[in-house]
């Protein structure tokens, strides 16, 4: 299959230009060899940057306007959009009725086919090698029609004579001429009757060693090539000649009617395994898209939080995630490009128009995805800028607190005045405390896990143990890109650390 070779070659790693057979392997290779190399990641990022420009076809200047210009503010919401939510309309299913009718009709065929398969199985069981014994064996399982009554071939209606001899179908026992029978090889017969069938499980597993296309062709054999109507089948006569010369011991002679029934069943079976390579590419691409979308969602959340100067998430985490997204984008670009040229260089069996259109559309959809989902990912603030943002936020918070304090102070003064007249014992209002945890949390942001860890003495202190557990969880969550969990766990860790710290301090001052 020249075509399939074309398909398989050239799934190149963009870094080391090694050839891979499938995107799965390429990704695995990526993860194994290029994952932690910052240089490689950078080059990927650059590549992605180029793709971005190419896809958007935009010049540098545009970025600064992109957000502002097209915002034609919505003048009015259409009244219909305020209508209460609705549910899906009426649906009526005919599936049950349809399948009842279909099954009734197909049952007729399937009982007949099953009968043939049972007979085939019996014929194969203990099949004698000696021709005479074999004929006895065959006739014991399928009684043959008395050929004296048959004057014409029931299929082609030609009369029998010396040159057109009578033959019995080994499956139904009917009589017909040589041209109206075909040979079913024992090998094929065995495949048909074996419960596991032709296809091994690897046919659907993309990790298998053998080229997929080859397996599909194998799965498609059976009787498909043999079953041609005798009038049109030059193939048939060729096969018959071949068969005759090799002798009858390798075959069963069967009539075309029986052959068609068996063939229909084989086709039905083969259908489930008919999964060309484009499906595997496509599934991988969709998986990348799904992963990328999830990451983008997470990233946008982190981006917003970081730009607020919050310290819920780490800047480095966001950077790592951004690179991961870029990598996924690169992969999506790559796979979809592969899909768009699948088989186009194949001369023998070029893809038909519809197939080309399909591949092209898949590629277009990937481009749209990259453009709309991934390229909207905004750049992170630099470390310097982030520090400024944090400071700004700190200032905002402090200003707010100061303002609230002032308000409170004023209020307290006022109420003092008032209460002084009414009652003498006045407690400080509790509202001050409500604000406190917020402040504490923000003051603790200088506490990084790495800087704190060495201070801890390696004892079996339960707090320390819990902290190290937490660190392990954080590492795990980070590896899985579950940054919300990272944030929660980290804040837990910080709490523990501050508890531990105050404990230590009080211990120190005590001792």
């Amino acid at each position, binding site marked *: 299959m020249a075509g399939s070779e074309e398909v398989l070659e050239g799934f190149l790693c963009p870094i080391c230009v090694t050839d891979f057979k499938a995107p799965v392997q390429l990704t695995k290779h990526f993860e194994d060899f290029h994952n932690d190399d910052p240089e490689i990641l950078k080059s990927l990022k650059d590549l992605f940057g180029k793709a971005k420009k190419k896809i958007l076809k*935009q*010049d540098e*200047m*545009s970025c*600064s*306007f992109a957000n*502002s*210009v*097209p915002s*034609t503010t*919505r*003048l*009015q919401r*259409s*009244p*219909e*959009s*305020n*209508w209460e939510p*609705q*549910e*899906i*309309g*009426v*649906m*009526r*299913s*005919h*599936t049950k*009725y*349809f*399948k*009842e*009718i*279909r099954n009734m*009709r*197909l049952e007729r*065929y399937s009982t007949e086919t099953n009968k043939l398969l049972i007979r085939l199985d019996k014929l194969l069981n203990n099949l004698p090698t000696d021709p005479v014994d074999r004929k006895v064996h065959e006739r014991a399982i399928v009684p043959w029609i008395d050929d004296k009554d048959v004057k014409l071939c029931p299929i082609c209606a030609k009369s029998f004579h010396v040159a057109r001899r009578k033959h019995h179908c080994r499956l139904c026992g009917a009589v017909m001429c040589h041209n109206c029978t075909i040979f079913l090889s024992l090998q094929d017969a065995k495949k048909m009757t074996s419960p596991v069938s032709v296809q091994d499980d690897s046919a659907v597993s993309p990790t298998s060693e053998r080229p997929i296309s080859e397996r599909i062709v194998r799965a498609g054999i059976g009787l498909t090539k043999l079953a041609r109507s005798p009038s049109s089948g030059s193939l048939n006569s060729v096969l018959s000649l071949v068969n005759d010369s090799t002798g009858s011991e390798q075959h069963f002679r069967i009539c075309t009617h029986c052959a068609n029934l068996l063939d*229909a069943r084989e*086709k*039905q079976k083969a*259908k489930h395994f*008919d999964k*060309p390579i*484009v*499906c595997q590419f*496509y599934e991988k691409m*969709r998986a990348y898209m799904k992963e990328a979308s999830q990451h983008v969602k997470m990233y946008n959340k982190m981006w917003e939080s970081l730009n607020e100067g919050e310290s819920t998430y780490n800047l480095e985490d966001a950077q790592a995630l951004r690179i991961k997204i870029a990598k996924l984008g690169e992969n999506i670009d790559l796979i979809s490009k592969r899909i768009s040229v699948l088989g186009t260089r194949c001369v023998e069996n070029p893809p*038909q*128009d*519809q*197939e080309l*259109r*399909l591949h092209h*559309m*898949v590629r*277009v*959809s990937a481009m*749209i*995805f990259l453009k709309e989902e991934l390229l909207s990912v905004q750049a992170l603030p630099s470390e310097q800028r982030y520090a400024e943002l944090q400071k700004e936020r700190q200032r905002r918070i402090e200003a707010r607190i100061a303002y609230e304090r002032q308000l409170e102070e004023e209020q307290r003064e006022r109420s003092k005045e008032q209460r002084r007249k009414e009652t003498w014992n006045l407690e400080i209002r509790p509202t001050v405390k409500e604000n406190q945890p917020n402040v504490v949390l923000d003051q603790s942001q200088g506490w990084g896990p790495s800087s704190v860890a060495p201070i801890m003495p390696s004892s079996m202190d339960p707090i320390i143990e819990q902290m190290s557990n937490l660190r392990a969880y954080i590492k795990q969550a980070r590896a899985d890109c579950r940054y919300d969990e990272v944030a929660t766990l980290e804040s837990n860790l910080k709490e523990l650390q501050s508890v531990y710290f105050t404990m230590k301090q009080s211990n120190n001052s005590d001792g």
Partner: protein
Amino acid sequence: MNLITALKFYITRMTEESGPGMKVLLMDKQTTSIVSLLYSQSEIFLKEVYLFERIDANVRNEGLKHLKCIVFIRPTKENIECLCNELRYPKYGTYYIYFSNIIAKADIKLLAESDEQEVVREVHEYYADYLAISPHLFSLGINTCSQGLLWNPVHLHRTVSGLISVLLSIKKCPYIRYQNSSEMAKRLAEKIREVLSKESNSFEFKQDSPPILLIVDRRDDPVTPLLNQWTYQAMVHELLTINNNRVNLSHVKGISKELREVVLSAEHDEFYANNLYLNFGEIGQTIKELMDEFQKKAKKHQKVESIADMKNFVETYPLFKKLSGTVSKHVTVVGELSSLVEKHHLLQVSELEQELSCQSDHSMQLQKIKELINNQQIREIDVVRLVMLYALHYEKYANNDINGLLNLLKNRGVSDKYVKLVYNILEYSGINARQNNLFDREAVAKITKKLFKGLSGVDNIYTQHTPLLNETLEDLIKGKLSLQTFPYLGSTMMSKKPQDIIVFMIGGTTYEESLTVHNLNKQNPGIKIILGGTTIHNSASFLEEIQHATSGILTKYKNNNN
């Protein structure tokens, strides 16, 4: 009751039921239009649909067995036949079949017997059998629904299916009221009731307040589709024709390749969504503001004071074109509209149209019409429309000069076809067709007043006219709609004022009426009105409808007047 939402629910369900994997959508001509109105290409890609094929296409190719095929077709005889063939020799791996309307059991049986290879997974009825143009507007895409002023049976059947599908998709079982003067309205109402009772199982809904299905006839208001329009959507349809949300601009001189056909979809075009109900002048202002904003950012200074300036602007700043998304497309459309208005002196024409439809000053109006007929710069079709409006207005006026105007038209060399249209519209919608005046002379005056009501204090002389539908619906909302002119079908009546209203216009509705309904929805929170028509007319398509409708009947007007 949002029609676009209702249809999107169905299509989404279709694409989800087949699970993940590459899909092909197999449709017929009409369902193709239905789907293409709802989704852009990138939206449909998100649903993993990559190919669109027509069931009636005769190409036999090898097929792609690894594709899932979603079949979405109308349950017509031809489609069933095509689908049976498709199932006998399936091109795709599995089939999920959705009919856009009620299908006969016998047809399901035919299909089941064709599915020898067991490729079919699901068979359903999903009632997405109408063109949803706006959340409150639908069309059935029937350009000329009547012949000899009676239903064409094929179109009646399609109209019944369409309305049944609307009701099922929004889960409403209505009370039916119809225009008493219209045979076609009555017949349609009865046909719908037939289906409602036959399919009563499907129409069992929990309804707080049952909706009203109001069936009206275009013949009661022939004026609205004859007028020039000045709100964006209506104007584009009148001057450039909107077909399936698409506008053909290929005739425009020097048009760029990507603008030969533009899509105007409120669902996917924010600028259009914000501006489709605004009038022409306001849109120019919006565009100007966007350009000024851009200039401020880019520190550029170019004056934007006319539509020509705008076109220049788009050419000078390709960046604006890229960033403003759809705005530059609208600059082109607005530019084309404005050049047509100028070229054909449509402001002048429109002013007289509005006077003819809203005021009664016979001699002055007659004089003005004569002047415009003699003005060679005014298009033939425009003067003919003016004469039509005059004839409708002054048909029973003792001193009317319809014949004199017709002679003037003939002298100008206006084609016979157009001259005949004046008779046609009187036949279609003359005063006798508009209402029943056997017993009451006063009713005539009242109805005439309704149709040609004089409005005072309107600041824009080009938008004085309000469609008759506005008053009909206002009356209905207030519970004051006459039971004589709009009786209930059957003996049951609604005691409460209606909250949900589905109004359907036989003979086609217009975008001006769509705007009316939009405004009523806005002014009456709690009331939901949906408008539908056999089609959405502009004046050109309406004239065709009239011609078709009046074909094959005795033209008594011609005899009387000649």
